């Protein structure tokens, strides 16, 4: 199939491209490599990252191989509005953590992970819920990125799928292992520059290779009325709304984002997050347009596999030079995310597991660094093995997403409301996850009173999402009003309707149930937490080089 459908590079050309990419990246990290790294720099670059590098790193981390394929699939499936419903909400994930991120930084200026802050606030059980969900999420992300490398290499060259997986694993580990997060940030910058330059060239190149704007205009006749509608309800309900619900969950739950939040200089947080939001949106929506263009030209994806859309379009319409650039684009995107996942996991094991729970806030920095590097090696091995054997663990992503949805309110409430207790936090997360599973896998018949009750809980979850977003930018009073009005409005529309959209119903329920349980149990307690304790408990681990705040 490959030879007939896709352009084929020779083995030598692909190996040369991979060697140039990973070799160049490795050489770049030699600029920062020190004989003796310190733990705080290894995890968060001493909290001193500037605006340019911070924005580049945030954007590169958030763009993974699946972003291109997902946006193109969305464009091909839902038409005009498809790329927007993929890229816009993904971009807003970055933006919506920013107001909460400032609070996290204020409470714990020396933190390396969000788990450390939660440990100081509540203790081990809440912290380990956050840490374990992050590790699971990062392992899945690693597997997906290595799989994307294997698929790309096997489609565009005679090399095997496994060869692509192993080369990506070894390549990413080689440049991240010694300097950790520092290497990740520096290489993210170079990788993002390359990715953006390629995206800027490829999108117009495909359009003009197809015959220019007139071809697109002619292709409008191939679209269904829903696909031709910028405000398609089909696209909103099946693509946009589930993504919108996930906005806060992925931003709050993902250590790759919070690690950058703790690494950027405090006065640069706002421009960094805004720039990353715009950068991510522009690249991903832009590449999603290739899927839309495929739809407008009547192209069918090979074997019905939507992941073939972009490689197919590039192979069919562009010259080998552009195909080489596309190859680098995908390898760059998956590598930047994979190195961030390795850095995130190493920081979690170093700080959350060893620093807080084993060494009880008094770790040996040398041993800590060793643990961080060992984590990277083990994680890479697991990622490569899972990807090589094409193990179907994507179902786990459903649970990770649900877990992250269930922790959003408890995490945010814990940082603003002094009455939230450890019991409230833990119970809320467990209850949210449990109810999510019942709704998602339809463990009870979704009819009658039960379905109506679930829809009301989901409406409340929708109110929580919108209320939290309003709260982040406009304060408590506006947040409460928006949340209450949204929940009432959504309840009116949801009952009798939302039961047909199981994914959306279950995701919203995770928010709603965890919020109700968290508030309820917190109100039963009379204890009030002193937030100044967090700064005292969350410390730098390397006394030789204390962090300097801007």
């Amino acid at each position: 199939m490959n030879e007939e459908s896709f352009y084929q590079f020779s083995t030598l050309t692909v190996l040369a491209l991979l060697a140039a990419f990973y070799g160049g990246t490795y050489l770049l990290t030699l600029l920062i490599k020190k004989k003796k790294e310190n733990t705080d720099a290894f995890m968060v670059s001493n909290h001193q990252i500037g605006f340019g590098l911070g924005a580049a790193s945030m954007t590169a981390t958030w763009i993974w191989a699946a972003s291109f394929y997902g946006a193109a699939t969305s464009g091909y499936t839902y038409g005009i509005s498809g790329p927007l419903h993929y890229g816009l909400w993904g971009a807003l994930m970055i933006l919506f953590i920013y107001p909460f991120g400032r609070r996290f930084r204020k409470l714990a200026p020396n933190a390396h992970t969000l788990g450390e802050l939660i440990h100081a606030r509540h203790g081990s059980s809440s912290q380990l819920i956050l840490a374990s969900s992050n590790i699971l999420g990062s392992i899945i992300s690693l597997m997906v990125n290595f799989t994307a490398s294997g698929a790309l290499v096997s489609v565009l060259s005679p090399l095997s799928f496994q060869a692509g997986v192993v080369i990506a694993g070894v390549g990413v580990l080689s440049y991240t292992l010694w300097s950790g997060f520092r290497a990740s940030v520096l290489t993210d910058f170079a990788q993002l520059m390359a990715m953006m330059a390629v995206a800027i060239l490829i999108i117009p190149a495909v359009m003009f290779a197809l015959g220019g704007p007139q071809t697109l205009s002619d292709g409008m006749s191939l679209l269904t009325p829903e696909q031709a509608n910028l405000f398609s309800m089909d696209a909103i309900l099946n693509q946009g709304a589930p993504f919108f619900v996930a906005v806060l969950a992925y931003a709050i739950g993902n250590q790759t984002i919070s690690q950058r939040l703790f690494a950027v200089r405090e006065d640069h947080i706002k421009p960094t997050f805004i720039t990353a939001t715009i950068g991510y949106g522009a690249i991903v929506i832009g590449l999603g347009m290739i899927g839309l263009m495929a739809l407008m030209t009547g192209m069918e994806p090979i074997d019905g596999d939507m992941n073939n859309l972009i490689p197919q379009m590039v192979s069919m319409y562009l010259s080998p030079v552009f195909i080489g650039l596309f190859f680098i684009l995908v390898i760059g995107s998956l590598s930047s995310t994979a190195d961030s996942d390795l850095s995130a996991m190493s920081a979690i094991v170093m700080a959350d597991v060893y620093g807080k729970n084993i060494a009880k806030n008094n770790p040996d920095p040398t041993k800590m660094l060793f643990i961080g590097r060992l984590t990277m090696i083990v994680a890479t091995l697991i990622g490569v093995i899972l990807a090589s054997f094409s193990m179907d663990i994507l179902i786990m992503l459903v649970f990770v997403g649900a877990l992250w949805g269930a922790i959003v309110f408890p995490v945010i409430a814990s940082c603003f409301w002094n009455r939230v207790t450890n019991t409230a936090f833990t119970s809320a997360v467990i209850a949210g996850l449990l109810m999510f599973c019942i709704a998602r896998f339809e463990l009870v018949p979704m009819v009658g009173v039960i379905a109506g009750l679930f829809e009301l809980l989901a409406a409340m979850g929708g109110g929580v999402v919108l209320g939290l977003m309003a709260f982040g930018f406009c304060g408590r009073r506006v947040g409460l009003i928006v949340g209450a009005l949204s929940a009432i409005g959504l309840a009116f529309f949801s009952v009798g309707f939302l039961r047909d959209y199981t994914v959306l119903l279950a995701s919203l329920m995770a928010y709603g149930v965890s919020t109700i349980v968290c508030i309820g149990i917190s109100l039963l307690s009379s204890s009030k937490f002193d937030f100044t304790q967090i700064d005292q408990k969350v410390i730098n681990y390397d006394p030789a080089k204390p962090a300097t705040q801007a």
Partner: protein
Amino acid sequence: MQTFILALYVLIWPLISLAVLAIIGVATVKDIRVALLEKRELV
């Protein structure tokens, strides 16, 4: 008109990407200068 709007809808994203690329590039040069002035490492 439809042709123009469609072309704009597709091409606006690489244009925004170009603007962001320029902003990040300039900001990073500033980051390097500040790091050199403060005699500390860039990352």
